[in-house]
């Protein structure tokens, strides 16, 4: 095992520095509504994330927080509202004179997703590819990066998440923590302007949570813009610029970690925090 202090330094150096988002407000979600059939899962959700900000979304399960960040890269459709990333409307174009949302062309959606990295609860590494192949796959086949250049970048990323020795190893031979660190490296390799984390430590054994959070903390320190859905309150307190509390599809409360954790104003926030802290 790699010593924890060997982990994660200068992560963004491996991809040529902090990717520059085009606008100061990286994510701008306005009045987002989503239904699963008759179930109203997102109710007029509004959220802004500024450049280099880390926003942690908390809330009970079923509160819509995972659904919300899946909408940000259009893995889920929305029924009304607008989500802008870097000033571009995500997944849709305006139709019917600005009154209707029309789903965008697949190619455009794919291009938008290149700017948005996502890390999943269950890692979703490609099992038929080695660690390094997982990382260089999209840079080569989506971005059109040269093979050699991608290898150099991929190795640098692996080294900086502390897994240089694992480049030729297949995911099924890696621990959950190692897989998740590679999944983060894979997302970073696309040089995204925004990173989404969907409960990245929820599927991990307790002893592996630390190594993944360490990588995420380093990313935040280096100035990556991130939205993190997480139950890790320690991480939120230490790293988040803002904490957003969601319940029942609604943003209940948002503020600095101190405000939300130490003096929550809403009863639902208090009730939730009393259960998990």
């Amino acid at each position: 095992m790699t010593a924890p202090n060997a982990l994660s330094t200068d992560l963004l150096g491996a991809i040529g520095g902090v990717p520059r988002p085009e606008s100061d407000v990286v994510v701008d979600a306005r009045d987002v509504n989503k239904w699963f059939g008759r179930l109203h899962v997102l109710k007029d959700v509004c959220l802004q994330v500024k450049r280099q900000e880390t926003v942690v979304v908390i809330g009970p399960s079923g509160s819509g927080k995972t659904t919300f960040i899946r909408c940000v890269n259009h893995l889920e459709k929305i029924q009304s509202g607008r989500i802008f990333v870097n000033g571009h409307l995500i997944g849709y174009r305006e139709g019917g004179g600005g009154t209707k949302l029309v789903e965008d062309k697949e190619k455009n959606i794919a291009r938008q997703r290149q700017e948005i990295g996502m890390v999943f609860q269950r890692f979703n590494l490609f099992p038929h590819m080695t660690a390094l192949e997982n990382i260089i796959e999209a840079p080569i086949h989506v971005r059109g990066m040269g093979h050699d250049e991608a290898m150099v970048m991929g190795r640098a990323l692996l080294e900086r998440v502390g897994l240089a020795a694992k480049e030729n190893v297949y995911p099924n031979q890696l621990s959950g923590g190692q897989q998740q660190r590679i999944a983060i490296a894979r997302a970073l390799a696309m040089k995204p302007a925004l990173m989404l984390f969907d409960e990245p430590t929820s599927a991990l054994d307790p002893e592996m949570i630390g190594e993944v959070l360490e990588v995420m903390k380093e990313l935040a320190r280096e100035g990556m813009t991130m939205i993190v859905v997480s139950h890790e309150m320690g991480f939120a307190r230490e790293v988040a610029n803002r904490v957003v509390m969601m319940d029942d599809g609604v943003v209940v409360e948002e503020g600095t970690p101190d405000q939300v954790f130490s003096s929550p104003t809403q009863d639902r926030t208090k009730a939730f925090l009393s259960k998990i802290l």
Partner: protein
Amino acid sequence: MGRHIRGIRPALLAGCLLLLPLILEGCTARRTAPYTYDWNQGFWTPLFHPDNLILFGLWLTVFIAVVSQFFGVVLGVFGALGKMAKAWPIRLIANVYIWFFRGTPLLVQIMLVYYGLLVTKIYPWPDLYIPILGFTIVSEIQAGIVALSVNEGAYMTEIVRAGILSIDPGQMEAAKSLGMTYGQAMRRIVLPQAARVIVPPLGNEFNNMLKTTSLLVILGGVPELYFTFSNKATQNFHPFEFFLACAVWYLLLTTIWSIIQGRIERRLAKGTAAGAAAAERGGFRERLLGLRGAGSSGLGGH
């Protein structure tokens, strides 16, 4: 001891089969037999000194099977994607295709494709010269390949679809989140993984295909293995010996195929727990000769 008996011993079976002529000779010798076996001309010669007709038949059988299976897989991939398409007209076309070709006898399809299109002049099957291969494919063989391909495609559709559905949807999501289009994600992420699931049933399909080519005898102009032996058997009035030899040739083909299939499966298994286990278990030769506990997975196993 029990372990050894349980395992199927393909080598032993092959031995028994080759001794069959002698055993049958013994059984019938005492009767006043109207039939005289001619094992030399009818069995041993076609096996160990096959003439050019047999060799050509072998080659044609393999050629038709490989080409038809190839197009069958291609059609199967498109069929599966069609069946899962968002647009209903595409789904309808895929469903009708499968419904028709799985619901009618292959023999009928062969006749329909050849005589049907020929007589109506919808497609009169002109001889086709293939520059890359350097030879001409006559009309009956073309029609045969087309009929076998579309029939196989219908079956492969379900196999490919099951393979794709077996892959965790998270794989498609991860690929999309990296900016891949649906097509890229299918080609580079989902289908390679689905291939692992598809290869074992695909192997069975090809095993069937090798044998099903014999149905093309109905067209009269496809001198594949069965056609050749069937001619010899009737000309010489020794159907038993000739068809037995014919069976051995088919067995040889399917046996060689099962060896190749095993290799392919092991190669595709990389990155899976099953892959590591298969590498441990050892090669086909060991299993064939029963050098290790072969378990219940015998030769072919179809």
